[in-house]
């Protein structure tokens, strides 16, 4: 990919984010923040790339692995914690009926 097309990707991604998130009720802001935060752990893909390309470079493998650990901590923890919060919301209306 050329640098310019990556910049386009950046621009369109930002616009998409602005548009998607403009209409959220305050109630869902904490779960949304937590969910979006889990998605920012997408950097785990960069860590994976690093490990795969490291070949026999042990220090690089270790750095990649630590980085992957941090990212997955963010991703797994983030999604679980969001689910915990949302589970409490979604149970309610059905209980009422």
């Amino acid at each position, binding site marked *: 990919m050329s640098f310019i097309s990556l910049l386009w990707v950046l621009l369109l991604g930002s616009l998409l984010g602005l548009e998607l998130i403009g209409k959220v009720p305050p109630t869902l802001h904490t*779960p949304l923040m937590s969910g979006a935060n889990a998605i920012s752990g997408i950097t785990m893909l960069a*860590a994976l790339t690093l490990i795969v390309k490291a070949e026999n470079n042990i220090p690089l493998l270790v*750095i990649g692995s630590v980085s992957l650990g941090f990212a997955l901590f*963010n991703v797994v*923890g983030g999604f679980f914690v969001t689910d915990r919060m949302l589970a409490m919301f979604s149970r309610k*209306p059905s209980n009422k009926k």
Partner: protein
Amino acid sequence: MNLPVIIKFVIDLLAVLLLALGIKGLSKVKSARDANRLAAFAMSLSVVGLLSYYLGTSGIAIQSWIWIIIGSIIGSLFGAILAKKVPMTSMPETVALFNGCGGMSSLLVALGVAIFPISGGLENFDFFKSLINEVSISVSIFVGAITFTGSIVAMAKLQGWLSTPAWTQSKVRHFVNIVFAVASLIAFFDLINGNTSSIWLLVIVSSLLGIGVTLPIGGADMPVVISLLNSYSGIAAAAAGFVVDSQLLIVAGAMVGAAGLILTQVMCKGMNRSLVSVLFGGSLSAQTTASSSSGEYTNITSCSVEECALTLEAANKVIIVPGYGLAVAQAQHTLREVTKKLEQNGIEVVYAIHPVAGRMPGHMNVLLAEADVPYEQLKEMDVVNPDFPATDVVLVLGANDVVNPQAKNDSSSPLYGMPVLDVQEARTVFVIKRGMSAGYSGIKNDLFDLPNTSMVFGDAKKVLNDLIGELKDLGVGEK
């Protein structure tokens, strides 16, 4: 284009689509939980896509697999355990911690690529191959480090492990932070000039900058900072995407970055603070301790739990205003018991949720949902404000600044202009509070001086427990 490239392209596209749908779904109560799972699925899909691409092209060496598995298991395990164990009251700190680790991950990737030039067949991968690589590595390190140290400081402050040192409230901090910022700029240019070792300078000064900008910020502004740092971690991920040449990373990172900014803006609006004053104004309490608004109380009425129970029993409509004090006291379940009793007696009960009640928007909703409060009873500020004049009793539980009439009446007050709940319009207001200490803004609350306000002193949970006892004695809620 060969097959693995095409497959990866399709999977990436699908993952972006699902992530976008996930974020969109998170904006509606009904679909939020499924949306969160959809996003989690999209993330797993993206991993499968990346791994299958490498399996189909260069292959993945055994030692790579080993390190992948080690990192994944340790990271996921700790993440899952923490997510299951952490109490709902510590949600803001937890999000801050997760967020900081995301930033750390981006930092490490950039650092790894920078200090270990990798041999052989790496398209866009050699360090200093191009200016673009250098810039994206620097940005990734800079933003990643700020996200990490900033989030850790935010977490420590929310946990009470760190206080706000006095020097951070003086002008000194601007000077210190400018020094750090200039130093990172110098390190950045040095790096571009080919001096690889200055990468460590960049790591150190950006870490210090993260600490320096977060440390002066006071408790009430913390959610804004966490939200902003959440946005940063997205930017760090996008920068890491430039480093490893991944469109998926850039799109997802940019989406999170934009999301965090919007959320930050919403929170600032709710508190009547501009982002600039949050970031550079220092702690609000420090600014205002000297100002006239921190005057003495002259007309405090204190009352017993028994009186409170008697008034509640006679009420037709009760509005509960929860705040951070409720979260700290872990009193949400006890509160629910009280309101259940009132409802059984035919008293209408609703909860007025200020947009920034607690430490994060939605903090109270999460807390009350945990205590099985029906979702429909939670009313947003704009909906509930016209109801106060027709309300018999308002119970303020651990909320302070969000019910301060100064925000409407006193143009000299730092709170002036902040949207507040008009609780003083109700017939009687009970404020359950441990003592006369000020709220997080450090500003005197004029509500406490009003004739229709009574203070019930004590820990929220204890007072509510006593209240249950008193209501029982009155025969409320027993059929």
